């Protein structure tokens, strides 16, 4: 079957999608967006977390056909999404209301010195920068899901308590860091966000 949706502000179409296929599979294998990771395939680990119409969900548990017509943000689009949010909706999120990126912005979009494979030279969102600065990335496999979840937390709650952070990230497993540096990164991003507002 054919599925249409918007990914990171751009209209996408996938053909010959198997009816039982997950949104995660379509993103990774058909759209060349391998940022969302495939690990448990049962919603336990959160490494496939994406925003679906604004809400963080496990993309492994969304049937591709269910995403028809929806707005999806993956880790690849997180920097653009965060920039758009800062420019257009300071202090809040646009969620599904405006779809993240306007048509105008999407048309003007171009890869700005980004190495398509490594992303080197690309712009980072504040949460991505904070993860690097706090040393919250070790093997990196859980990182994309954590970034999407943490970014959504900070969109909703500008100064989260430690309990809020733990709660928001409770669906994302990390086997390397012991989580402390991840909590540090979210606190750091929140503090920087407060400075700029």
């Amino acid at each position, binding site marked *: 079957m054919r599925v249409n949706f918007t990914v990171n502000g751009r209209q996408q179409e996938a053909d010959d999608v198997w009816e039982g296929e997950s949104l995660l599979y379509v993103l990774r294998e058909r759209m060349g967006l391998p940022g969302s990771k495939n690990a448990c*395939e*049962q*919603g336990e680990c959160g490494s496939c977390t994406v925003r679906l119409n604004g809400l963080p969900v496990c993309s492994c548990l*969304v*049937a591709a056909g269910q995403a028809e017509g929806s707005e999806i943000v993956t880790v690849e689009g997180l920097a653009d999404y965060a920039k758009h949010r800062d420019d257009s909706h300071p202090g809040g999120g646009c969620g599904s209301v405006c779809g993240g990126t306007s048509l105008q912005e999407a048309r003007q979009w171009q890869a700005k010195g980004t190495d398509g494979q490594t992303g080197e030279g690309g712009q980072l969102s504040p949460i991505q920068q904070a993860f690097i600065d706090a040393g919250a990335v070790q093997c990196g496999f859980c990182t994309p899901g954590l970034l999407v979840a943490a970014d959504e937390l900070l969109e909703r709650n500008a100064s989260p308590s430690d309990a809020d952070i733990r709660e928001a990230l409770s669906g994302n497993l990390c086997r390397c860091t012991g989580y402390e540096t991840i909590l540090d990164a979210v606190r750091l991003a929140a503090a920087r966000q407060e400075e700029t507002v």
Partner: protein
Amino acid sequence: MDFLRPASWEEALAAKAEHPTAVPIAGGTDVMVEINFDHRRPEYLLDLNRIGELSEWEVGEENVLLGASVPYSAIMENLRTELPGLALASHTVASPQIRNRGGVGGNLGTASPAGDAHPALLAADCEVEVESVRGSRLIPIDAFYTGVKRNALAADELIKRVHIKKADGPQQYSKVGTRNAMVIAVCAFGIALHPETRTVRTGIGSAAPTPIRAKAAEEFLNAALEEGGFWESRKIITPSIAKQFAELASGSANPIDDVRGTASYRRHAVGIMARRTLGWTWESYRGEGRSSIEGVA
């Protein structure tokens, strides 16, 4: 496999009538796991995401009409006052990502004894509104669970919404698991005080082939509270009553040994949760009494 995407409830009922083997999918948090692991290859997937009314709720005089697909996160955020037990249970469901997708309809459709919503639904008292092209009917929650992962739904029926009694007293929910998130219940217990009818209702999860009520414990407690005049006096429930209630609750469990826990552990834990949740709810019932007396003064 065919992917059916009805745009309206009527279309969904027609599709289910035409293809009774179609597997309804809403949040996908059960169905997609089975498909991902190749445990299930349904002939038809019936996507309910386009039917907006399934994600709506309505707070009436006596009941909350809760759409089958209202996500757990929305229940936590919006229905804490009307459905405190279910809101607490919702908060124990998996993780934020899962709570954003899953809803009570899925718990009822799967009818796993470990579904987190069941003990709260049993304790609050509710009816499940199911519909087919033949018409609609209300199934009392006590008659809904018919076996391990089996329910009273006919092959052509879909769950539309649940008519849940609005709380008329304190409710509590307790769940045993190895961590505070992302955990399937080892066992769970829900309790609701109904001061209007002077009754207490309970629900037990993961400790019998189906979600059940601890009926003997309820009957004992209802009689003891009535006899001792506890509803009027709001005095502390005597430890012997609480102990007997816990023992009877434990006795109504009929658990098995499995990887998550042994039968004897589950029986023990059900008793502990029964005693604790009774203490918590009764304490807030007593508190309400104090504040209303102060209010009058």
